[in-house]
């Protein structure tokens, strides 16, 4: 099985999307004879190459971070470049991976509907959409906190590499929590105001000597 992977993160190689894809692809490669080609959509000047790759692909995985509850603009530009391929005989099957910063899957469910429709618009068999929240900063997390997550992506890739399908149970588990249970939401209402919760941003603000400016409103009239 030959897989063509489009990493749609504007951060490219420095992205959480890349980290998740890496584990998925390690799993994918365990099946004999599997190969893949991975490209980064943030290299926007290579747009023609991306279209050719899609045209020649048998199996496609399009992965991106959630931006404004949707795909980033570079991904939309890529999708627009595929317009002439809509309904073409021999289009690849396509699966999607959407990762977001907030922990709940609900934020990604609306773009999921778009992606399913996109597959049908292109005339591609829709493999499914893997949704994973809570991914902001996963590159910096200690290994023990990401082991389970990475194992799940490895397994997903492994099963996909053998069957060409996303494992429904794994996809479901990864998407949890779908929403915050009411009690937990109440607890987080308090916790988000604590220094611990703000420290992720505060540390970066301090590193950049911008902490005192964190509430700036440069465009207020």
């Amino acid at each position: 099985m030959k897989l063509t992977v489009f990493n749609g993160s504007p951060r490219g190689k420095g992205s959480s999307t890349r980290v998740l894809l890496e584990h998925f692809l390690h799993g994918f490669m365990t099946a004999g004879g599997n190969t893949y080609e991975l490209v980064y959509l943030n290299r926007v000047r290579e747009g023609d190459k991306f279209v050719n790759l899609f045209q020649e692909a048998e199996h496609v995985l399009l992965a991106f971070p959630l931006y404004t509850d949707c795909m980033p603009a570079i991904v939309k530009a890529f999708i627009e470049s595929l317009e002439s391929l809509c309904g073409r005989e021999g289009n690849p099957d396509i699966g999607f991976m959407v990762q977001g910063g907030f922990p709940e899957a609900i934020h990604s469910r609306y773009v999921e509907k778009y992606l399913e429709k996109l597959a049908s618009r292109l005339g591609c068999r829709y493999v499914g959409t893997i949704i994973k929240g809570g991914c902001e900063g996963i590159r910096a997390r200690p290994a023990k906190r990401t082991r389970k997550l990475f194992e799940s992506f490895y397994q997903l890739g492994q099963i996909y590499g053998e069957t060409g399908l996303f494992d429904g149970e794994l996809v479901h588990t990864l998407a949890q929590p779908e929403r915050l249970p009411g009690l937990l939401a109440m607890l987080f209402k308090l916790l988000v105001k604590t220094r611990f919760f703000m420290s992720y941003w505060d540390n970066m603000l301090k590193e950049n000597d911008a902490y005192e400016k964190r509430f700036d409103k440069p465009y207020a009239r």
Partner: protein
Amino acid sequence: MKITILNGNPNANNVKFDNYLKELSDLLESSNHTVTILKLREMDLKYCMGCFGCWVKTPGECVVADDSRDICREYINSDFVLFASPIIMGFTSALLKKAHDKLIPLIHPYLEIVRNEFHHLARYEKYPMIGLLLEKSKGADEEDIKIISNIYMRDAINLKTSFCFTRLTTDPVEGVANEINRL
């Protein structure tokens, strides 16, 4: 009201779309609104790189000195913003999305819980209401319009505002103007 129209039409040959917006703007101005149309395709806009510089380096402003700074300034000082675009491959244009992605300096990195969901905190006291104007191009159907509207409705929570309506350029321009007048 102060109204900003984000014209996400990427195609200069699609004069009909631009003319519709001009007509809408003239009508709104005749009702004493102040209207600014930002023709995004003529602006110097770089893609959001997801660097978070606008949150942790130069809070509230994109680190890249492109025209997104002008868009943010117009946006946050408006009472109503109309996102306008032809439907391309089932969604608003990449051009409009490019501008949309660059609105994140207007919110704050800190978190809050809204409707039992995680969201980012507001940076400003007041945010404009938003609406959507779509050109139903070939191949677009009712389901596409619903999908797009739902995504904008969702994003209204992030943009600390309410989503007011979706209208099509097949609607009489007076109807769209009246809808905005009623806000």
